[in-house]
Every structure is written in C-alpha cells, then in structure tokens.
C-alpha cells in the first residue's frame, strides 16, 4: 500500500485532514501486515502441518480447498453409487 502519495480525498489547504486520513490508513496497514503473508515467516511447521494448518495463509487456503474437495468427492461418490444401483422394478 503506497502511503507516500496524497489521497484523492485530501485537497489543498486540508493538511490536518490528510494527516487523519493517513493515520487511519497506516493503522489498517499495520493490521494487514500483522495478518498478512509476512507473518507466515514466524511459524515453523514441519511435515504435513507445513501445508495444512490454521495459522499461515497457505495452510488456511489448503485446508479450505481440502474441505471443498472432500465435499465434492463425497457428493460425486453418492451420485455415482446411485447410478450404479439399478432402480427396483415391479414384477
């Protein structure tokens, strides 16, 4: 996030407002840095936890994709099973 350039919200003669706007943006930038990819470096996982954990960005993304993939596989399994089993016909 580029904080050096003046925001379009700041106009001439409104330096104090510019400072307020920049202070807000810096505060949110700090929150983003604390939760962002740079924070992943502080966690040192090994093995499968390196790719599937709920702390790093990559780990969380992989857990989400794995959950969706599992749901898709379960749905696919039941669909194919119902196709294989023929319907009971009246005799």
């Amino acid at each position: 996030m580029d904080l050096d350039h003046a925001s379009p919200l700041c106009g001439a003669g409104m330096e104090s407002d510019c400072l307020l706007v920049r202070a807000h943006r810096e505060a949110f930038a700090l929150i983003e840095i604390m939760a962002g990819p740079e924070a992943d470096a502080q966690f040192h996982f090994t093995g499968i936890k390196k790719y599937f954990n709920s702390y790093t960005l990559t780990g969380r993304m992989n857990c989400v994709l794995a959950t969706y993939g599992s749901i898709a596989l379960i749905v696919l399994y039941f669909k194919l099973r119902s196709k294989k089993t023929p319907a009971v016909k009246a005799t």
Partner: protein
Amino acid sequence: MNENLFASFITPMMFGLPLVTLIVLFPSLLFPTSNRLVNNRLISLQQWMLQLVSKQMMSILTPKGQTWALMLMSLILFIGSTNLLGLLPHSFTPTTQLSMNLGMAIPLWAGAVITGFRNKTKASLAHFLPQGTPTPLIPMLVIIETISLFIQPVALAVRLTANITAGHLLIHLIGGATLALMSINTTTALITFIILILLTVLEFAVAMIQAYVFTLLVSLYLHDNT
C-alpha cells in the same frame, strides 16, 4: 384506515403503465449538478454533506477500494433520498420491495467478492478459515464461513426491506388507531398522536441510518477484499 393495510406497498400503476421507473428516477432531480466553482446554497450544502460522508467512509479503504467512491456515494444518496421521500403521505417507497434491495445488494456484494478472488486469491480463500482454529473444527468452520458469506447479500437486502416496511406499517397502524380513538376517548387519542409524532421522528432517523448501514456494510465487504 385503509381496508388493505398493505396498499401502500403495491407498485403503483397509472392507466396500466408502471410508475416505478419514474419514482426510482425522481430522487436524482433533487441533486442538481453544476459546473461552477462556487455554487448556490443547495448544491453547496449537498457537496459539503457528500464530502463529509465520503471522507468518513472512504478513509478506511485502500486506493483500489477508493475507486468505488462514486458507486458508494451514489448508493447512500439514492437509498437515503428514497427512504426520506417515502415518508411523505400516500407516497410509494421503492426500498420496501425486496426485489429492488436484492437487486442492489447482490451485484455489489458479488463485485466485492469477485474483486477479492481476482486480486488476492490466496487471502480470499484463507478468509474462510479463521486463524488459530483447532484442527478438529476446521471442516465445520469452513462450511459455516461459506454459508455466512452467501448469507451476506440476503441479510443486506432483508435488513433494509424489513426496517422500512415495519416503520411504514407502524405509522399506518398508529395513525389509524389515533383516528379511531378520536371519537371514543380524546385523551387516549392525544397520547397515541404523541406516539405517532415520536415514531415519525424515529422513522426519519431510521431512513438515514439504514442508508448509511447499507453503504457501510458494502464498503466493509470491499475493504475485506481489496
């Protein structure tokens, strides 16, 4: 009192032609544009108000999110003016129609979410799992977060519809009760009339607050995705 309590929520027609388009376009006439540096009092007041709201709302967004400023300011002006005009007697309020509010909420929410998935795919997907979740709870929480994401536009639309509709209905009912009580007990009618005045003041506030809440939530969804 009208025999049909919901008569004011039926979309108005004239000679079989719908008037909704005219009603939806009407608030734009109340916000004239000007290419002068120093404007008249009305335009100056509107510009001051718009600048106040846009500064407060857009300051939390990134420069990329601030490109939505025109959209969000138009939204708050439209919903606010429509809600306030709806408080005039015998008028129709378009924001009481769920179809209209869904038509506003879904594209804006979808735009914010798709922007997030396009620009920050990893972070957008990781958003479905809160940081620090215990391992056994991961699948359940992913499903819950997915459901809460898809509920957002519905909640946005229903919140606006319910608030405005409920307010209009209450005014209608209490107004009818005041009229009915006039011939029965004047003191009770007076108390009911005072309640009606307070309710009308509340509805003015609700009209503006709901416009602000709708726009603020859209800007928050945008902030999460930019």
